[in-house]
């Protein structure tokens, strides 16, 4: 995923809100989001030495060229021959589970998840209602029960990057810290048109019949995931590798092409599970 300035054609591989080159002209909508779907394997290397963040070896890194002629690299445990064409079909799924393993920074995992589901969010023009009753200032003793302000801020700013409009009580949203009474429910809205999604942290999921269109944001600290949750759209962050494996073993989630048995990112339809 990357952004290109419509005017000067500058490509941004990093997360920017406006074109840095054209910003003086005050163009808010200069950036066009590209989510490539077709990749050709140009080159590959097999890595045999472990590094602190990638201890399981050997793994492969493939150099891919997308339909826009840009190149990028991906880690995979599969052997992909040079010249192989890969289609990323998963972005069209209606129901999905997106997971990210987080080792160090929770916010990095959230950003990555939002990136993964970005095509869905952009295409569906979703509107998000975020229940603030579970959001609190981050404090160590609260972590097991609440979604932190930092987490919710990261979700919202990532959605803003995808051109979702975020408002709080009809005012422009700035950040959670500035919201005086965050416990008032459903005042924070991320708006576009179309479907309605809700983001909750896990402890707020109590009913067996959750709406299909709910996005559950599940925090990595909760290990007991109830079955009904699998039936909904799911953003899942964990630092627990065993839990990832459990997800795979349930058969509800297939291996991601690029990551294979090392379950760093999983993104797949749930049609067989229903």
């Amino acid at each position, binding site marked *: 995923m990357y952004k290109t300035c419509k005017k000067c054609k500058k*490509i941004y*591989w*990093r*997360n920017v809100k406006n074109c840095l080159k054209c910003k003086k002209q005050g163009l808010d909508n200069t950036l066009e989001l590209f989510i490539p779907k077709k990749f050709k394997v*140009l*080159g*590959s*290397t*097999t*890595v*045999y*030495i*472990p*590094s*602190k*963040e*990638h*201890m399981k070896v050997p*793994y492969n*890194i493939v*150099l891919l*060229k997308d339909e826009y*002629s*840009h*190149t*990028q*690299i*991906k*880690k995979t445990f599969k052997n992909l021959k040079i010249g192989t064409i890969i289609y990323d079909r998963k972005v069209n799924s209606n129901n999905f589970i997106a997971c990210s393993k987080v080792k160090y920074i929770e916010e990095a995992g959230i950003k*990555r998840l939002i990136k993964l589901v970005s095509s869905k969010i952009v295409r569906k023009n979703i509107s998000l209602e975020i229940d603030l009753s579970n959001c609190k200032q981050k404090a160590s003793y609260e972590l097991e029960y609440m979604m932190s302000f930092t987490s919710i801020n990261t979700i919202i700013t990532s959605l803003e990057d995808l051109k979702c409009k975020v408002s709080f009580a009809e005012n422009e949203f700035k950040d959670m810290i500035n919201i005086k009474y965050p416990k008032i429910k459903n005042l924070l809205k991320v708006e576009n048109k179309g479907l309605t999604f809700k983001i909750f942290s896990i402890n707020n999921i109590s009913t067996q019949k959750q709406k299909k269109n709910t996005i559950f944001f599940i925090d990595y600290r909760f290990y007991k995931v109830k079955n009904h949750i699998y039936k909904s759209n799911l953003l899942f962050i964990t630092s627990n590798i065993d839990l990832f494996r459990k997800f795979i073993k349930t058969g509800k989630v297939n291996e991601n092409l690029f990551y294979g048995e090392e379950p760093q990112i999983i993104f797949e339809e749930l049609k067989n599970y229903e």
Partner: protein
Amino acid sequence: MYIIGSSQTKFGNSEAGFDEMMYEVIEGSLSDAHIEPHDIEAFILSNNLNYYTENQSHSSAIIPSLLGINNATVFSSEAACGAAGVAFTKACNLLSSYDPIMIVGVEKMSNHSTSDMLYFVGTDSDRELEQREGLIFPAAGALIADLYMKKYKITLKDLALISLKNHDNGKLNPYAQFYGKEVTLQMIEESPVICSPLRLFDCSANSDGAVAVIISNKYRRKSDIKIKATYATSFDLATFGKENPIDFSSITYVAKQLFKKAGLKPKDIDIAEIHDGFSIMEMIISEYIGFFEIGKSKYSVRNGETTRKGKFPINTTGGLKACGHPLGASGLRQIHDLKRQIQGKAGANQVENVNKAFAFNFGSIFKSISATILEKNV
């Protein structure tokens, strides 16, 4: 501009700590220049990983502590493996305000495991696009090697010959990590694959080491070496992304700027120090600078033209491959070794009649590039 003094520690696994190595080269370079600590008007520290390896940031402020000087002007330079080259260019540009300037490059790498070091060094690459995808630097070098070798029909033996040549030189250099160590073609070819197609002996080794160089605008002694020109610039951090992943025009750009400043051409250069973090890099860089036609340096490697006694010697003291690669010091080691060559003080590594010498240092994969031409003072 002149180099008036320089010094280096022996590279390799050292019992000396960061401060001790730094102190050794500061004293050594002062002695070489015949000046005192208070004569230095500014210091620049080049270091890459001290924050991780020694849990010490703001390392530049250690210099005045070591020398017992108050009010010392100290700058720092951080540009991954290219930090020292960038620091040198920065110092040259600062000479109008401070004269003389001492540049100190130091790195302590032996006190952590390889997997930790790969992670630490990996922080020099793009966090989002590369680190998360497991693109450690040997893997980036390997991907480039894979594409370049296929395009120009370069063989693994060609890479092995580069490594062999640099080990032959390093074996004679008492400051090199591989000093006195016999490395054969068979050892190189049978070494384990690190990231295919690159083998262990295609990669430079983590190393402890320090180098200090003192520069001045004033010519003082006959042994001073003229800095003909120096240039540094940076490019996009991510290695891959552009349409042609083996487009190395950034190297050509830097070389053109440098030769223009110097009023010279590649053919005027007698010897070169090329940043051979991976064996393939020596080939790519020497071609894109203009020392050889693109895709053709393999013939020069096969014919022995780049050996110490060849037509155009490259990495005459062992390069990063055999000297070792203490990240923040390597660029200065290149300058120091070229100075020794021009002075005729390179011992067993000496090349005859060196008048103009070229150094090329880079950080990440051709992202922060610096290049320098030194000239004998006649």
